[in-house]
């Protein structure tokens, strides 16, 4: 009992609240559905490039934040831990955009348009 209390205090005492097994399973189902939709969009003819790319990026971002928020508990954790991850994540996205801009490589438009 004391062990369980210690574990719980260490794990979820930082931000209050915690995910349950039911939450984990619901998140996994959502991840599976989004992944299936992502792959299925590739086989749908006639989707404009900008819509396909932006749709895939949005679905990927939703999956990313579901895993980080629920499976990694960041939604329930201390703001310091959130800052430790989100800060570098913003820098990483900035790096990707900067490198792409430097090389004139853009995702949303076909190259011959640029």
């Amino acid at each position, binding site marked *: 009992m004391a*062990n369980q209390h210690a574990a719980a205090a260490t*794990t979820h005492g930082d931000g209050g609240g915690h995910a349950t097994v039911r939450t984990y399973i619901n998140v996994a189902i959502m*991840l599976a559905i989004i992944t299936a939709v992502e792959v299925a969009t590739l086989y749908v003819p006639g989707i404009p490039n900008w819509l396909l790319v932006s749709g895939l990026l949005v679905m990927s971002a939703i*999956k990313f934040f579901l895993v980080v928020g629920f*499976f*990694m508990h960041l939604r329930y954790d201390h703001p310091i831990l959130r800052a430790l*991850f989100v800060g570098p994540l913003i820098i*990483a996205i900035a790096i990707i955009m900067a490198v792409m801009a430097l090389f004139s490589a853009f995702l949303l438009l076909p190259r011959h348009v640029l």
Partner: protein
Amino acid sequence: MADHAATHAVHDPNIGNTGLDNRKMGMWAFLGSDCMFFGSLIGTYLAYKGKSISGPGPHDVFDIPLTSYSAALLLASSLTMVLALSHLQHNRVKSAARWLLVTALLGAHFVGNQVYEFTTFALHHGLTLSTSLFGSSFFVLTGFHGAHVTGGVIWLLILVGLAWRGQIDARDYTKVEIAGLYWHFVDIVWIAIFTVIYLIP
């Protein structure tokens, strides 16, 4: 209750001035730095995309059904990882060990698929690390991710061994949680790679 928490904090050498576990903070800081590492590799891949002057292109070689299956394996392994943590939290150590083993096996299956994919690219399509800009940036990015997964599988198997020998219980939750954070991180990196590298035309 507050006194108890304060006493717990005072006596636990892993709890720092912030009241947070130093090991957990260290892992989040590492994951943040790894984000920038993979950000650089993804940026490089995108910058070089379509600029190869020799060798096959991405959509000459990609096997989307196989890669989708690999993505599903990693997503499933994230679920089994949190189930392992949930069992450990309730001191069901053997069940936790079983879920950790399932997680490691799913990860090993992912690595096996990647080895098969790399081998197919090299032997059937003539795409290697030195063939083209695409080959270099693709193999470096996905290879580093595969190395991360391999490291995670080894880490999980060590935890399985410790749990099986009774050397881990609910008090060691944070040790397993940190391994879980690392494991989920390789999953989110794959979420990004799968979309940006494989799915976007």
